């Protein structure tokens, strides 16, 4: 409690939640500890806000200046009073007809700089709003939605820039990451995630090579590098028309924040055929390995392996499977997978583990400096992968593939030691997990599940300490904030935003 009061009284960053990953490094770690292993049993709902907006709610809310800023499906957003949940303003933009979306009309949250909020709209635009009123300050178009481009992820503010990814690799697009001037909306730079021509793309396949960038990256101010994961090459499961490694798809790229130039890249899955986007949060943490301090970037990749890379140069430090993997016999010292033959999708269907959604997909992950552990949800699941014929038509679905019906799969919330990739503990779940993860200085890990529970686990042991049935599937990650001396946990569940706190003393 004492520690909490010190934080609450002096450090706004501890009380607020002002970016997708909580800090630039993407930790999703709250320094608040009023809700802790001793008190969490008394955690109770404080308010709910019904958005009355159908669709999947994947948002990370931001909280500052007493307000909570929530984005929702279908180009909606709300500003809510963070103590009472009462709506203060709302934002809605009509969606043009026929926007191509692979996976629903979703949005994953705002970015903030000063009094401005930034979000993407589904039709591939970036909009700046006034945080006080919701008024639009500017709106810039990333790329033409009629060509298959769209946008769903929370932007990342780096100095005076708003950096954003895009979506649309299933529609024959060419992926990129854009940076816009935060005040004017003018584009400062663009980095394509599909290299133009060269040996890694046969013929002109790079022009529709995919590599979308649909989860927010992270930023290391000391190196001035932005880290961003890239998605699958297109078409997904038919690689005959795109021979080669298909750089920089299924990769992590490190970008100079000022110039937009790629400093290094690391490709997790060369010439991917299973839709294993490398878009999991690139979490930046400093590790001590064999007595030597290392600036690392860590990720639980969709291809089934956990990776720790040296974030100054992209060299692999650790690569270890965290779920059932049938396509590769480990990762070589150069970081390339050692492939197992006969795992490519076929016309008749070929069963491979992990399945299309991977061992860990996009769901937010967390790193706790208190335990030194990395937390994420994982699936134990295999799938039948089918290759199929498809002609490219601009702006049309271009996946050349399908997968078999879902096999029942269970899952886990995992805690991994990033220095070794070894599992410290896991909490088994009866279905594949849907939600993201939050770690706190109260020694807790929070996550929501497919059946609607918000769960608190002991961050050191994985023991469940508290739960609440929200009544809606939890896809969004929980966050934490403090106001007037009280710590809150907040999460979107179903169509509802819910906050929890300890009873008033």
């Amino acid at each position, binding site marked *: 409690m004492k520690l909490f009061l010190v934080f609450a009284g002096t450090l706004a960053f501890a009380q607020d939640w002002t970016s997708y990953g909580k800090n630039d490094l993407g930790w999703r770690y709250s320094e608040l500890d009023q809700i802790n292993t001793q008190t969490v049993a008394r955690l109770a709902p404080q308010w709910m806000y019904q958005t009355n907006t159908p669709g999947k709610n994947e948002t990370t809310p931001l909280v500052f200046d007493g307000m909570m800023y929530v984005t929702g499906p279908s180009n909606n957003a709300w500003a809510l009073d963070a103590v009472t949940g009462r709506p203060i303003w709302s934002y809605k933009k009509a969606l043009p007809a026929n926007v191509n979306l692979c996976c629903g009309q979703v949005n994953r949250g705002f970015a903030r700089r000063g009094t401005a909020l930034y979000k993407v709209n589904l039709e591939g635009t970036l909009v700046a709003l006034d945080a006080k009123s919701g008024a639009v300050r500017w709106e810039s178009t990333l790329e033409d939605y009629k060509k298959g481009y769209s946008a769903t992820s929370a932007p990342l503010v780096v100095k005076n820039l708003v950096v954003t990814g895009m979506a649309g690799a299933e529609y024959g697009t060419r992926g990129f990451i854009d940076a816009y001037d935060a005040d004017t909306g003018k584009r400062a730079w663009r980095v394509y995630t599909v290299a133009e021509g060269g040996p890694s793309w046969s013929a002109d396949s790079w022009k529709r090579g995919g590599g979308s960038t649909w989860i927010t990256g992270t930023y290391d101010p000391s190196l001035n590098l932005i880290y961003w994961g890239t998605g699958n090459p297109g078409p997904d499961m038919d690689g005959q028309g795109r021979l080669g490694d298909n750089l920089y798809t299924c990769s992590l790229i490190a970008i100079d924040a000022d110039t937009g130039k790629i400093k290094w890249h690391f490709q997790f899955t060369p010439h991917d055929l299973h839709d294993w986007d490398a878009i999991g949060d690139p979490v930046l943490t400093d590790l001590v390995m064999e007595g030597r301090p290392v600036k690392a970037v860590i990720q639980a990749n969709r291809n089934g392996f956990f990776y720790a890379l040296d974030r100054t140069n992209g060299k692999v430090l650790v690569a270890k499977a965290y779920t059932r993997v049938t396509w590769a016999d480990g990762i070589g010292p150069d970081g390339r997978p050692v492939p197992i033959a006969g795992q490519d999708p076929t016309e008749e269907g070929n069963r491979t583990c992990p399945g299309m959604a991977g061992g860990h997909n996009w769901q937010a992950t967390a790193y706790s400096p208190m335990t030194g552990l990395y937390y994420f949800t994982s699936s134990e699941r295999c799938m039948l992968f089918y290759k199929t014929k*498809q002609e490219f038509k601009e702006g049309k679905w271009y996946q050349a593939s*399908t997968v*078999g*019906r879902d096999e029942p799969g269970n899952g886990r919330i995992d805690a991994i030691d990033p220095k070794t990739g070894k599992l410290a503990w896991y909490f088994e779940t009866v279905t594949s997990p849907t939600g993201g993860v939050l770690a706190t200085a109260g020694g807790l890990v929070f996550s929501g599940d497919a*059946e*609607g529970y918000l769960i608190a686990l002991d961050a050191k042991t994985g023991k469940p300490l508290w*739960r609440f049935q929200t009544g809606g599937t939890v896809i969004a990650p929980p966050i934490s904030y403090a106001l007037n001396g009280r710590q809150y946990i907040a999460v979107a569940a179903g169509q509802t935003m819910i906050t929890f706190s300890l009873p008033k003393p």
Partner: protein
Amino acid sequence: MCSAQNTTPAEAGRWTFRILCAPCHGIRADGGRGPDLTLGTYNAGDQDADLYRVISRGVPGTEMAGYAGRVTDDEIRQLVAYIRSVGHAQAAVPGNSAAGEQIFWNKGGCGQCHRVGTKGSSLGPDLTRVGRQRSLAYLTASLLKPDADITPGYATITVVTRDGKKIVGVERNFDNFSAQFVDLSGKYYSFLREDVTSMTREPRSLMPSTYGKLLSEAEVQDLLAYLNSLRGAR
């Protein structure tokens, strides 16, 4: 690349089907999460225009989305052609449906767990429209080998209580912290995981796997004929 010149509409439709439709309707159109489309009869109507309408606009209130914005009119017509090419009026079912109905309610005891219309029990899946939803091959497999494919939500739950009692039943809900299920006598149970010794869900059926022995070959055919005739109220 296939070209329109040397490809039949049904063949062109097949490739589109694999991409857009197969995730729900199966790679061979024989069903999965979505209905079996090889039966030659469809929930929303049996004319080409009905199929076109459903593909184009979807079916409100179901998971069937409209595809008008994603595919062209020609592609929808190709999909209809493909569905027509795999849909076949079913081979005449050899059994006697009326005799099968008697077996269903008497010797087979099927109504102790299944419902048809307002009659029977709701322990297992409702069979009121099963002849429309499932192929004869699927029904045969389900009758003789009940574990072959479990309808989601009907797995077997086993709970061992703290005092060592084992209770088995059909799933009503199963999550990370609790299980709700109904035993074969129809009794409803709800347990919290923390209150019991163990709680498991298995992808097997509580339906007896002995119908191949209990019933003669002719009786099996009669029962299948009855199940195949169940097309709901419409």
